Structure formats: structure tokens, C-alpha cells
């Protein structure tokens, strides 16, 4: 990973992530902390994204089940 001023650039075959966002180039906000960003391989990034989607679907399913339960009357 290279840093030029407030810009982080991932190396070839790598992706930058802060745990929520993924990208090859990161333009840091004026108040952002560069240490929150790590470099992982593209393959690992794809895997983490899949895991996040699965987690989102499970969360949503639980929320729906709860709301339907609360709506019984």
C-alpha cells in the first residue's frame, strides 16, 4: 500500500478496507485516520464481502421474524 498525501493506493492484486468499505484507492477525509485501513488480497476481500451479505440476510430474516411475532394479536 502506498500513501501519497491523503490518498491510499492498494498494491497490485490487493484491496483496501476499513471493515465496511472496499476499494483500490482511498481518498481520506480531512479528519480520517489512515490506520483504520488495511490491505488484504482481492480474494480475501471477495470472501469478506460475501460474508457481509450473508450476515445482512440473516439479520434481516431475524428482524422480519421478530416483527411478525410482535404483530401477532
Amino acid at each position, binding site marked *: 500500500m502506498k500513501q501519497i498525501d*491523503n490518498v491510499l493506493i492498494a498494491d497490485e492484486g490487493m484491496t*483496501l478496507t*476499513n471493515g*465496511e*468499505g*472496499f*476499494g*483500490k*484507492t*482511498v*481518498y*481520506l*477525509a*480531512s*479528519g*480520517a*485516520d489512515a490506520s483504520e485501513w488495511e490491505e488484504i488480497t482481492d480474494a480475501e476481500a471477495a470472501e469478506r464481502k460475501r460474508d457481509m*451479505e450473508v450476515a*445482512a440476510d440473516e*439479520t*434481516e430474516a431475524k*428482524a422480519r421474524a421478530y*416483527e*411478525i411475532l410482535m*404483530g*401477532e*394479536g
Partner: protein
Amino acid sequence: MANANKVVINRPDGEEVIIDLTGDSVAPETLGKGVTAHDKTGAPIVGTMESGGGFTPPDSEYLDPNEVYRTTRPSDWLPMPTPGDDEIYLLCDFEHQLNGYFAVKITFSGTCQISFGGLDGSTFVAKSTYSPQSGVRQVYTVNRADYIGKQYLVRIKGNVTAVDFRRAKDREQYPLIRDAVIGIYLNQINFGNGDYSTREMPPLRYIRFVGNGGIQQNGQAFASCQKLLSISCERALSLPNYTQMFLNAAGLLAVADNIFQNTNAIATNWTFYASFAPQINAKIKSNNAAYCFYNSKIAFFDGEKFDTSTASALNNMFHNAGSLCSVENLNISKMTNCSNMFVACYGLQYITFAGETTPGGYTIDLQYATLGHDALVNMIASLPTATNAATITITNNPGASELTAAEIAVATAKNWTITI
């Protein structure tokens, strides 16, 4: 007078260029409509461009529920009587040649009667009348042999506070209610609760609140009414809770503005509501917009109509809204949770935010949307200043790689990290 495009003053120590248009690139098609300027020849021009470039959200069209009722109600259905302010009328089908089955829980004070009958001209004529127990679900049989046509009318009359037509359990029959006209100001009404495998009211097409008729509270009122086309309402309501009110009501075309008068409502989970936002003229304020348009067919969202300025939870708001192409003025000034907000919104071409500041500390994920360069520039210009650093991910959008450092700097100066 000939057009001038360059003004040069000859001074003793040489020429001084005062103005020089010869290298300008301004043209009518790239200048805002009605704006005047001079082109590189010095000729006056008037701009013709309709917007700031890129995608232009269309004007939405509001469907009047009364017009939907008038134009789509089958002509062979029995007409509906006009209810007094202590009456509800329901139009029901017999199922083939079978007796009618009618189950309902009515909550009331004082006395109440439920009658089954037909019409004499436009006047309801009861063939059978019962006195229900308040708050107890009861099942009535309507004798098919007493009726000529394929339909019958139900009148509920009294000081009624709540009516509940939901099924008691899975696989139980439900009354074939087609049309409902309500003159009572009810505390609560339930035609469904969202669990469309067990508790729905599938045949219902129309609901009309007339005169004093209305409801004072309740989410899920019309959930899973999958054939429901329109809801009209003559009085303004002040509902505090829209939670799941239209969940799975996928066919709904028109809802009266009067339903949406409350200014501090909880509007969660409008899921499966077909293109909700463009068809509402009223302004809706939502304290909790999570899941509002999850899995919905919404195409255009207008933040001027759907106000999220007090909402902190906007997570999953447009999750899997595959038809979404435009989001305008989405207010994020109180937003603290935006997880999975735009998952699978692959057709999103335009998005702008509203609010002076936003708490930040979150990541808005817009990767794989369809935002072009101009749309991204508009979006960046609209970002509120983030109190804590916020991140917006625009990876794999067609215009992301075209953004210049200066254009991105507009965002970073407002405490936004941009991920490309």
C-alpha cells in the same frame, strides 16, 4: 454592432488584453436553460440544457384513490350503501354455491349489531342480524339460499372501537371481503398482519374511509392485502405508526394523502409496496426508516416528500430495491446506521443527500451502482459535513474513475473519505 470577442488596449508599454473569449467553450447545449452568455465568437447565446447534466429524475404522477375506485371497480358488483358515523359496510362474495363464511372480532362499548343482507334500491336490507360479544372472535354463516346474486353485504353498527378480520390460524377460511366502506373513527383495524401465508385478506380490493371514518393508530393494518388497489380517506388522520402498514401489499396503486398527516411517525418496513414514493403527494416524516423500501419496487425516491431529517436508522432502507434509479435529497442529518442501505441497487443512476451536517462514523456503500461522472459530482456536492469522519464507497461505478482530485477534494474537505 458586430460581435466582439476580444478587447485589447494599446498602451505605451505594450498591449493589455482586457477580455478574451476566443478560447471559451461555452455553448447553448452545455449552459443551463435560460442562462445567457457569449460564446467564443462574442455572439449572445441562451442556454438550453434542462439540468446540471446526467440523469434527470422524472416528475411523479399521483394517482387519486377515488379515481382508481371509480374506474376499476367491476360494474357487476353490488353498489355500496353510504354509512353513518357508527356504521361499516362490507361487500363479500359467496364462494361458488356455498354458504357465506364470515369471521370477525369486533370491540365496542354499549351495543353493537352485525347484519347480513342485500339492497333495496340503494338501501341496505338486513336478512339476519346478530349481537356480537365485544372482543371475541365469532364466526357467522350466511345462508346462500336467501340470496339471488353472488354477493352479500355486511353492516356493522354501534360504538365500535376496533375490527379484526384476520384469520385465527393457518388454513382457516377467511371472509371473501371485496370492498369496505367505513364511517366510524376506529381506534384500530386489521385486515392483515404481514404473515401472508397464514393471516392475509387476499380478496380485498378497496377500502374507503368516509365522513368521520378513519383509524387512530396501527401498523400492519393493510399488510398482505395482496389485491388491494386503493385506500381513500376523506378526513385527515394522525397515525403515529406506519410500521409494516403496507407490507406485502404489492398491488397497491393509490393511497389517500389524508392517511399521512402525522409529522412524527414511525414509518418502517413498507416493503413490497409498489413504487410508493412517486404516488404520494403528502409529506411523510419518518423517525425510523430502516427497511422502509426493502425488496420494494420503488423507482424514484423524493426526500422532499419522505422526510428522514429525524431518523437515525436508515439501515437496509433500499436493500434489494432493484428498480431504484433515483434518490433525491435523502436527509442524513441524524443518520447513525446505514448498513446495507443500498445492497443490490444496481440501477441507481442519481443520488443526492440533504442536511447541513451528519454525525458520521459510518460507511455508505454505493458500490456497483450506475452512477456516472456528473451524478457523482452532484452527489459529492450534496454531502453534508460529517462531524466524525464518514466513508462513501463508489467502487465499480462507471463515473468513479473519471473524478478529478479537485472534485474528490470537495468531499474530503467535508470530512468524507471516498473509496474508489
